[in-house]
């Protein structure tokens, strides 16, 4: 912090220059390209950032200009972020799978002048967007593939831009250093648009001070080092990637690794074996599902062996997490299990070297955490928000509990409002939403951020989150109803990909379920159940029975809970299509948008509370290019026994 106030290392371009001087040959970014991991050092990071910056300067980039960054995690795009910041501009990273409508909104709202795009796919979208947003002057693309026949004057390849930069430098030898020196700690470093579960996206402005101080404190408390390795695979538009793969990597000096393509992430993870790993619950769920599928496919003996040892490890881990005494017999077995199962499995997941792994963004089923921790992978919950530069609370090493998100980070204060809402004050508290003072006022109260989450601090100072404050409700007979709590329990099943529970002011809880095509498809194949498509598979009676079993399991786990006993799921249906961010049913970070779903599937929800066992549905789907189509289907409704009955 002292450095920051002395104006020395108060922006990322200055920090990168420092890294390039201190350890020029140390690898900063790796990218798998043409099947080989290509390395770029901190000197490259600085140098490429400089060239891109000078190229942009030659095009008339001015301080305060906004530049959109869009594409998969590529070193070139991280350099572009750095370049924009070096010129005193503000990068606005965009989700690479956004449809044109969403892009147009942000490009327009953020007053974007320049865009740096990964490839033809993104350029095509931006060119369409440009028709509605004439403020977008120049589009720079990295991958020239398929771009030969484009003649739009606003297009330029990154290679050409860098060449222009070199030429510009000849005439302006001190330009870059001068601009870099002008940057200050309280300048806006980035605008991250949060998709939000309601309304239009809001652009959270984070300053260099926010990001640098937060990153440094987090690295110190968590013990991150310059020799750590991380995988940069989450969308660059998400604040999490900006803080972990960019801010924290620069501040701490560790290496990030960009996967070859979105489809190879799990494979690349195995090759890199990161020591620092960050994943939202759905990725953990996904990995768990993959493991489960492979276990089910294994030969009988292997399957029994793996299941037995996983059971042993999970029992131990559960005991450890709840401070119960550990069974001596299981402790004896653990080393053998490590040799036979846990070690190989960890290696196979690419998690052998993990020192710190986070799950954040959504609540996670405790069973999922137990599974990975039992294998010896240090998965911890992190509670954060875009508006707080991510880090608010993290479970400390050795102080991990299943039902909390940990203790506050250094210099973070947490309080609970009278309405039970979690509020916090941190060094990372944002500067406000870009051009949206009303929203800023609603979120930022006297320097405190209103999280919108219902929760409390327990006796030992751990923060416990119950649900979104607005989502917690009561059933018609008064039982507390916390939808996400139930949904997460459902989602622990490898067969359930997504679930939406309904129950506020209703007589009972009902659920809309999305099956996991991979796991259920595999299950169906093993039973010789033929199916043609997701829709077809989802409506098979066998699949309904399978899911009924899973719902029953959730109900049974609720029987012992005094408070939530009455909130068991009594009816469910399996949706005929997957919830999709293109259809605005979930956000790009896969948070359920309840309001939209309630409106869109109103007939289905009414049917759940009616007497019929079928309902017809007609739903609009939006393709990635913005076209829409309609799906019609009949959906079955199934009643579930309550856990109490099953108990008897």
């Amino acid at each position, binding site marked *: 912090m002292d450095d920051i106030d002395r104006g020395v290392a108060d922006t990322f371009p200055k920090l990168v220059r420092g890294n390039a001087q201190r350890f020029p040959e140390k690898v900063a970014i790796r990218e798998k390209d043409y*099947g080989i991991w290509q390395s770029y050092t901190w000197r490259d990071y600085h140098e490429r950032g400089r060239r891109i910056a000078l190229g942009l300067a030659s095009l008339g980039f001015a301080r305060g200009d906004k530049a959109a960054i869009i594409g998969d995690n590529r070193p070139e795009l991280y350099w572009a972020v750095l370049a924009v910041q070096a010129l005193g501009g503000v990068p606005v990273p965009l989700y690479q799978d956004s449809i044109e409508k969403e892009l147009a909104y942000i490009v327009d709202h953020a007053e974007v002048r320049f865009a740096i795009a990964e490839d033809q796919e993104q350029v095509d979208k931006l060119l369409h967007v440009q028709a509605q947003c004439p403020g977008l002057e120049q589009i720079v693309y990295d991958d020239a593939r*398929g771009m030969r026949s484009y003649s739009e004057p606003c297009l330029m390849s990154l290679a050409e831009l860098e060449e222009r930069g070199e030429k510009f430098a000849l005439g302006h030898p001190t330009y870059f250093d001068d601009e870099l020196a002008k940057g200050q700690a309280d300048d806006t470093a980035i605008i991250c648009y949060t998709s939000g579960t309601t309304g239009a996206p809001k652009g959270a402005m984070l300053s260099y001070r926010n990001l640098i101080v937060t990153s440094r404190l987090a690295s110190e408390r968590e013990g991150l080092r310059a020799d750590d390795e991380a995988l940069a695979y989450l969308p660059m538009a998400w604040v999490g990637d900006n803080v972990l793969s960019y801010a924290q990597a620069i501040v701490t000096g560790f290496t990030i690794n960009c996967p070859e393509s979105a489809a190879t992430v799990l494979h690349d993870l195995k090759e890199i074996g990161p020591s620092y790993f960050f994943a939202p619950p759905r990725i953990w769920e996904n990995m768990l599902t993959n493991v489960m599928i492979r276990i089910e496919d294994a030969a009988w003996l292997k399957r029994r062996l793996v299941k037995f040892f996983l059971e042993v490890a999970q029992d131990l881990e559960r005991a450890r997490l709840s401070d119960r005494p550990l069974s001596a017999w299981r402790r004896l077995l653990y080393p053998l299990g490590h040799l036979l199962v846990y070690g190989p499995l960890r290696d196979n997941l690419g998690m052998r070297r993990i020192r710190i792994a986070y799950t954040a963004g959504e609540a996670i089923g405790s069973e999922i955490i137990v599974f990975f921790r039992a294998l010896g992978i240090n998965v911890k919950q992190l509670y954060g928000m875009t508006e707080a530069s991510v880090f608010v609370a993290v479970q400390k090493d050795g102080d991990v509990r299943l039902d909390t998100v940990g203790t506050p980070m250094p210099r973070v204060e947490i309080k609970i409002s009278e309405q039970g809402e979690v509020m916090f004050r941190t060094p990372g508290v944002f500067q406000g939403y870009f051009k949206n003072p009303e929203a800023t006022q609603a979120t930022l109260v006297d320097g405190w951020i209103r999280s919108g989450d219902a929760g409390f601090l327990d006796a030992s100072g751990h923060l416990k989150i119950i649900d979104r404050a607005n989502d917690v409700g009561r059933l018609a007979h008064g039982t507390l109803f916390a939808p996400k709590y139930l949904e997460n329990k459902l989602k622990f099943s490898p067969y359930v990909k997504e679930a939406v529970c309904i129950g506020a002011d209703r007589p009972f809880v009902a659920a809309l379920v999305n099956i996991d095509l991979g796991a259920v498809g595999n299950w169906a194949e093993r039973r010789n159940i033929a199916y043609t498509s997701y829709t077809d598979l989802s409506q098979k009676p066998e699949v309904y029975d399978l899911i009924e079993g899973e719902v029953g399991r959730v109900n049974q786990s609720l029987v012992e809970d005094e408070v939530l006993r009455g909130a068991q799921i009594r009816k469910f249906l399996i949706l005929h299509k997957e919830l999709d961010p293109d259809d605005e049913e979930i956000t790009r970070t896969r948070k359920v948008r309840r309001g939209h779903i309630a409106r869109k599937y109103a007939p289905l929800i009414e049917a759940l509370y009616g007497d019929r066992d079928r309902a017809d549905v007609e739903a609009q789907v939006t393709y990635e290019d913005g076209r829409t189509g309609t799906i019609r289907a009949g959906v079955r409704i199934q009643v579930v026994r309550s856990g109490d009955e099953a108990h008897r």
Partner: protein
Amino acid sequence: MSESGGEGPLLAVESVSVRFGALMALNRVSLDVRSGEILAIIGPNGAGKTTLLNVISGFYHPFEGRIVFAGRDRTRLAPPDVAALGVARTFQNVALFKGMSVLDNIMTGRLLKMRGSFLLDAIWWGPARRQELEHRAVVERIIDFLEIQAIRKTPAGRLPYGLQKRVELARALAAEPTLLLLDEPMAGMNVEEKEDMCRFILDANDELGTTIALIEHDMGVVMDISDRVVVLDYGQKIADGRPDQVRKDEAVLGAYLGLSHD
């Protein structure tokens, strides 16, 4: 319509006939494939399309007529010699080595370009090693080009059909052909796979400069991506021209609407 750039066509088929016993599979068919174009060969089932492709790639030899490739008569060459001239192809029914990885399958596309001695290859030393790395680099570029990084190490037989087709295209491209023959590259694909394949074919044509002759049944695809269309029916050429011309041609409509057979 018959004006051909400055030079002659890349491939000229000159009144070629092929007969199987009493059946005239091709009857005095003549057509040109011009350098840099995408030519579609269409026609009802049994019209002789695959036979034509087989004649060009040397599997069959014509009973009469001539085939001129890049200005040289090569009517009677065997398939490997045709391949060595720079003609690669894919097959109507996927013909991959099912047990081999995608990478190895594509590497076989480089076989004709490999010069090695058995001994050096066996100990993977010196020129043999350098050579393999060079070929691997070419193959990796094609893997990147066709976006199949994720299945590099997967045995080809375990892939879904659409991806197998793409791997087959990769193997053909690995030979860095001047002329690429595709036999129904989109048969049995869903809409999305077809769109992908179209893009790859256009990109190969545009970025790699490969001349392409393809057989395809999906008229939408044919009309979208080809520069020129040749229509065969009963072993005879009944039309040859730009997609919009062929679409209106009486004889073509007749053949397709079943006036002549079916």
